């Protein structure tokens, strides 16, 4: 079948590009570039977590950073107490997942409507921000880990090879790990979305009432989706804490939360590759803008271009108004209409599949 064939080609392409990227980057680029790319990979995993929850599950979570931050803090705190990274890594996935499950239970089984879901998740992450922010004193500690309040937790020990404390993963190792993890997340989610479960959650997104009248309990499916998304975000948070050896409460902040949503909107909801592209693109832009600091003087343009939030605001508005479907789906549409016009419209357009890439 044509659609299936295209689907496989797409998958193969992503795999090939991913592996080439994984192998070539450390050989071609200097360490500072590798380091920068590592954080892009980590953030892309975070983007994928929202791509699943919002793009496929239809759950607008405005507080995805809550799970990301919880993952980072859990790893840091556990690491100072345990010293060997296997358990902290697991906890950094389990704690945010459990938190997502608890929060999701009240939201979905309490039949909270979509808009309030956004409000609640945003509020939760801001509460976490404020709570952690006010734990600066020495009396705030968990075991031997001081929370550090607004100063954050510095000097977080890096991941080590499982079971071997004496073999920490170096910077290049982190790049391999983050890239491999991103690829695994991508292909794992593709599998999930092609499964029974994945097709049902897309059905619920399309028409919750109909799914219910067919005998599916939307609450349970949404809760499961939300929990998986929480676990993924937590895992990304753990890698992030490793990457900078540092975590601070800004990880829970409004800017971080909004950014994840922008990645998904720019890249395209209902796709997986879109949010990855959106995330990497915006991250790259952030770095580029940050490097372009105004060198004194009163050059208005330089000042405007150095104001990253302003630029993101403009990008967001431009996308919502002009490219509402996001980059990847729009490019797909353009490609399809080009193909169709070449075939003189004789061929019927292939409809999108639920799990299109």
């Amino acid at each position, binding site marked *: 079948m044509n*659609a299936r064939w295209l689907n496989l080609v797409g998958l193969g392409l992503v795999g090939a590009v991913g592996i080439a990227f994984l192998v070539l980057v450390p050989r071609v680029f200097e360490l500072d570039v590798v380091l920068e790319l590592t954080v892009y990979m980590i953030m892309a995993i975070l983007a994928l977590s929202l791509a699943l929850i919002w793009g496929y599950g239809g759950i607008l979570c405005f507080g995805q950073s809550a799970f990301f931050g919880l993952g980072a803090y859990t790893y840091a705190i556990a690491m100072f107490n345990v010293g060997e990274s296997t358990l902290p890594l697991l906890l950094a996935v389990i704690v945010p997942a459990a938190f997502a499950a608890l929060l999701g239970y009240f939201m979905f089984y309490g039949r909270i409507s979509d808009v309030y879901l956004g409000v609640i998740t945003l509020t939760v992450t801001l509460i976490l921000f404020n709570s952690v922010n006010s734990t600066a004193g020495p009396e705030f500690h968990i075991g031997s880990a001081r929370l550090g309040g607004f100063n954050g937790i510095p000097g977080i020990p890096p991941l080590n090879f499982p079971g071997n404390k004496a073999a920490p993963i170096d910077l290049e190792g982190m790049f391999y790990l983050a890239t491999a993890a991103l690829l695994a997340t991508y292909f794992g989610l593709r599998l999930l979305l092609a499964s*029974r479960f994945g*097709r*049902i959650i*897309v*059905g619920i997104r*399309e*028409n919750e*009432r*109909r*799914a*219910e*009248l*067919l*005998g*599916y*309990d*939307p609450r349970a499916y949404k809760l499961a989706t939300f929990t998986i998304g929480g676990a993924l975000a937590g895992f990304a948070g753990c890698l992030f804490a490793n990457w900078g050896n540092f975590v601070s409460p800004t990880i829970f902040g409004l800017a971080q939360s909004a950014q994840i949503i922008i990645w998904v909107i720019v890249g395209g909801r209902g796709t997986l590759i879109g949010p990855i592209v959106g995330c990497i693109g915006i991250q790259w832009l952030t770095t580029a803008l940050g490097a372009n600091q105004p060198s004194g003087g009163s050059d208005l343009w330089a000042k405007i271009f150095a104001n990253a939030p302003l630029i993101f605001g403009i990008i967001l508005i431009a996308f919502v108004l002009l490219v509402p479907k996001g980059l990847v789906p729009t490019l797909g549409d353009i490609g399809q209409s080009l193909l169709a016009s070449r075939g003189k419209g004789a061929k*019927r357009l*292939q*409809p*999108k*599949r*639920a799990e299109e890439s």
Partner: protein
Amino acid sequence: MAAPLLQTQDLSMHFGGVRAVRHVNFSLAEGELRCLIGPNGAGKSTFFKMLTGQLEPTHGQVLFRGKDISHAHAHDIARLGIGIKTQVPSVFDGLSVRENIWLAANRLHSGDEARRVVDEMLQRVGLANGAERLVGQLAHGQRQWVELGLVLATDPELILLDEPAAGMTHEEVNKTAELVREINRTKALIVVEHDMQFIRMIAKQVTVFNQGSVLVEDTVENIMRNPKVRDIYLGKQAAA
């Protein structure tokens, strides 16, 4: 006489001060085909919503095979074997026809068996050509067929059809009547419809709703002759 398949006792639904359904005692035998008629606002759709768990009755009971389902969740009722085709087609617009039917078939079947059921159902509702099209791009009549396919693929014991012939061409109405009679060979149905031609094609027994209560229950012929029914309902059509 055998126990009824579906029974309601004193079933009522109030929205604030509006009493949409009042003290309805309704009974449907196994394998029966019943038509429900009544003017707009008579409470037919509200009645359907209570039968399927979309609304919780203010008081009274719904018994399905003797089991009280008045307060059950919609998805549990669906699993017990009540399927509904709603008035405005409720389908998965962003997905293909095939994926729509699969979502229904998947609840009972998996793997190749599910695929076989989907193919069979696509044939049955006449959508085998164009099964890969998006449902959102189909015409209203075809969307009705998709929804009927969805309901049939979950293999319910009792099927509720809310205005299945609305917005259909004459030809499609005939086809629908034929399909309804075919479904009735194995399943019980309750059909809400305004089109008396259609009702005459399918039904024997008709229940008339008016202002939230059952006005009268009788055979099609007697209902057509009943002056009270003509007044509240058919009179409008006769005049038109």
